Every structure is written in C-alpha cells, then in structure tokens.
C-alpha cells in the first residue's frame, strides 16, 4: 500500500475502516440491546482525517450550540489507542437517571446531589457505550484495549466551551463520527473516536490483515 498526497492513511483504507466501524457498531448495538436492554441506534460512521488541534473547531461546527452539551471523555489503550468523546445534550444526564439508577437516589435530595447524580449517570452511560463501540472495533482489528475511568469534560454550564488543550496537537488523528440515538429516551448525540498518531501504522496493518481474509 502506498501513501499518496502525504496522507497518513489512504482513501481506500478509510473505506475499509468505515466498513469495519459499521460492522462493529452494528454488533455493539445488537449486543447492548440483548445483554443490557439498552436500545441504541448508531448511524453509519463517518471518517475524516483531522489534525487534532482542529478537532475542537470541527466539533463546534458539527454540534452548533456547544453551550448546551455535556461531554464524556474516555481514553483507551492498546495497539489501538486514542480517546473517545461522547457528546450529549446538556440535560441528558437527568433523562438517563430514570433509565439507569433504579433506587440509587431520589430527586428530593436537593439540587446539588441531583447534579452529581446526573453527572455520574452520564459517566456510566458513556462508559458502557464507549466500551461497546471501541471494544468491538478493536476486536475486529485484532486487539484488546483497556480504558481509563471516564470523565465529564463539560457540564451544562452555559459559558463552558470545549477546551483547546483537550486534544494533543501532535495526534494528527483519524476521527470517526457517529450519531447515536437512545430509542426509549429520545436522546441523541455524537460519538467521536480520535485515534492517536502512534496507532495509525498499526491500524493500517490491521486493515490489510482484515482484508486479506476476503482476498
């Protein structure tokens, strides 16, 4: 395989990666429904190559109103390495509480504890969704990854912006975007996977291996 136009990954490789993502997300959604009764639709992923320092601007353009979002970030490590970002509407955490936290706490505990509960619920939903998607992709590429604890990067604070320093500019990145939608809760958002520069070579090799089984 050659790299044309100085790209770190070829158009053909992107097509293959897109296909793998599509299979992975399909499997992830089916298993989420089957295993833990979470019914989520994941759109056909869209893949782009973006220098990571342009990512905040890219996300801003994609989601229009950045003041009204919550974002869960989680890093994954393996040969497949990078960060996953789940972008939810600002109030999603509260919507998920009824879905996820049977009996953990009630609304009467006051506004502060509701905020904490909403945030922690978002982290748990994010962890499961990111884990399912990243897990399936890495499995298809022949790797097993480990994860950092997820964190909420933004809350529903109107003045927050996506911090520039969040993305390491050295990580010229393969960015995968998918739209997800929780059927029962009418909540949808974006999932971005930003792969680190160092795993690009491994991804290319894995894509070749993946294709070899069909050749």
């Amino acid at each position, binding site marked *: 395989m050659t790299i044309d136009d100085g790209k770190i990954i070829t158009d053909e490789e992107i097509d293959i990666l897109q296909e793998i993502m599509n299979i992975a997300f399909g499997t992830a959604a089916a298993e989420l429904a089957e*295993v833990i009764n979470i019914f989520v639709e994941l759109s056909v992923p869209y893949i782009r190559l973006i220098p990571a320092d342009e990512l905040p601007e890219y996300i801003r353009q994609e989601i229009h109103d950045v003041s009204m979002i919550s974002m869960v970030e989680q890093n994954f490590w393996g040969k497949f390495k990078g960060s996953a970002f789940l972008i939810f509407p600002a109030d999603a955490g509260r919507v998920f509480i009824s879905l996820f936290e049977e*009996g953990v706490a009630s609304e009467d505990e006051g506004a502060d504890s509701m905020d904490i509960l909403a945030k922690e619920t978002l982290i748990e939903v994010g962890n*499961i969704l990111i*884990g*399912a998607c990243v897990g399936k992709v890495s499995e298809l590429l022949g790797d*097993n990854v480990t*994860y950092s604890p997820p964190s909420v990067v933004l809350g529903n604070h109107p003045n927050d912006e996506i911090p520039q320093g969040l993305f390491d500019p050295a990580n010229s990145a393969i960015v995968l975007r998918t739209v997800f939608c929780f059927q029962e809760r009418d909540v949808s958002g974006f999932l971005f996977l930003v792969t680190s520069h160092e795993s690009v070579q491994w991804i290319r090799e894995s894509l070749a291996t993946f294709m070899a089984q069909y050749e």
Partner: protein
Amino acid sequence: MNELRQIFETVNIGLVILDSELKVRSWNRWMTLQSGATEESVVGSPILSICPHLNNPVFLRNCKAVRAFGNFAFFSQKLHGYLFPFPPPRSLRSRFEFMQQSCTMGPIRNDEGVIESIFLIVQDVTELAVYEKKLVEMNMKDGLTGIYNRRYLDKRLEDEYKRARRYSRDFSLIVCDIDFFKKVNDTYGHQCGDLILKNVSAKIASALRKTDCLGRYGGEEFCCILPETGLEQALLVAERIREMIQSMESLYEEQTVKVTISLGVARLDEVMTSEKELFSRADEALYEAKRTGRNRVVTLDCPAVQIQAVSNL
C-alpha cells in the same frame, strides 16, 4: 508463592477475581482483613451470596457489559458509596457507617483473547470522602454557629421559591435579629456574644422541622426558610421561637445572660415575582418589630393577624 501472587496478597487494595458465573476465584488478603472472610471460605461461592446487596441492576448490568464487551466498569464513591459493606477506618467511623470505596471492574482474558473471568479492584477512599464532605460543609455552614451560611441560604431560598411556584405550594419566611446585641458585646465582651449567637441559633434550630432551613444571614441576624408553611403556622413557629429565646439563660463566667429577639414573618403571595421580594417583606416586618418595641413577632401580610400576633405576646 510466585511473585505476582505475593504482590496480589500484599497490596493495600482489595482484589477479587470472579469466574464467568460470578463465583469467587480469588480473594486477596486485604479483602480478608476487611471482611473477616478468608479466601478458602469464599472461593467457589457466588459473589451474590457472599454479598447479597450486589444483587442490584447496576452491578449486574456492569458485569454483563464486562463479559460481553470487555468493558471496564467504574463504581465511583460519589454515586455508589461502596460495593462491599466493610467497616470504615477506625478514626473515620463517626463520619461514615461503611468504608467508602472506588471500585473498578474489568475483563481477564485467556491466551486466545476470550474473556474467562472478571477482576474487581476495591480502593478505600473514605479519607478523601471525609475531606470532601468537610469542604462541602465549610462552603455551606457558618463556622461559629454550625447553621447554614449566607451563601447557602441565598441558594436555598431561590430553590424553595422556584419549587413553591412550580407546585403552587405555601412558603413562608422568618427573619429574626437579636435585640440589643451590641450591648451584650459591650457589656460582657465578644466571647460572650459568640456564646449567645451559638445558643440562640441552637435554640431556634430546635424549634424547626427537619425540612425547614435555618441560616445566619448577617452578624446577629438569622433566617428560617419554611417550605410548605402558611402564614398562620409560620407565626406560631415564630412566636414559639420568641418565647424560647426569652426564657433561655446563657451562663457566661458565672453570670446569667438573657436576650430577646425580634421576628418578621412573610408568606409568599401571588404578586411576588422573586424570592428577594419575599425576603424584603419579612425584613420590613422585622424592622417594624424593632420599631414598635422589640421582643415581638410582626407580619405585614395581613394587618388583622399582625395586630393580634403582636398584642398576644
């Protein structure tokens, strides 16, 4: 014992390995120390029978996610408190009934990459949780009296105002002030003044329900937020507080010090557009109580009731 097993036994965190049926495969010494159950006694037993309260949707869902996706699951102290009901470290027993834990769960794969078992890491974060609790309290409470501070009071007032409006509920406020407090300070000194502030706030607190909220608004000014309370009830509470303070005796350096307080009461009405208006109404009533002789309860909400309340005292 091989090297890794020795580390497994001696690390200062809890380590548990469960098989695919959630039966205990390994249980390190930290777990034995905290639970009193030896590894031999738990190996082979289902974790749900050793620890029945883990039989809840959140734990089971995460177990499934770990097995199906190779996910990691994180049980934060904030949301879950703990997974295993162990006693907290001795010095922190007054703060928490159980050790506060931050737990991580993840997959263990065999050489073929198939998930065969699940690991659980249990970290004792009780000390951190205590610090956080203290910080939150410091942010909410008045250092001298231990009742809520102005910052918290403002926030709570706003929340209760919104709640009362949303559900069309009764909501009343008492604002009170110690009479001639400066004299107490001048006569007996500031230490005595502090003692009086403490005693008065404790006494007022004892007259309130659990759902009410008492805060120190200024130097010797207090505010009682009374959700779900109409004007008549609020006046009764205020009068009870006035009587209790009047008959209260504080002992300072073998001298008995007595104080009285004046109280202003207001009820949220349909016309008010903010919690600030409600507070102003109560504050004006307090001013009126001061102006008309102190040691009394006044409301400006309904003149007939006001005269009665004052003259009855």
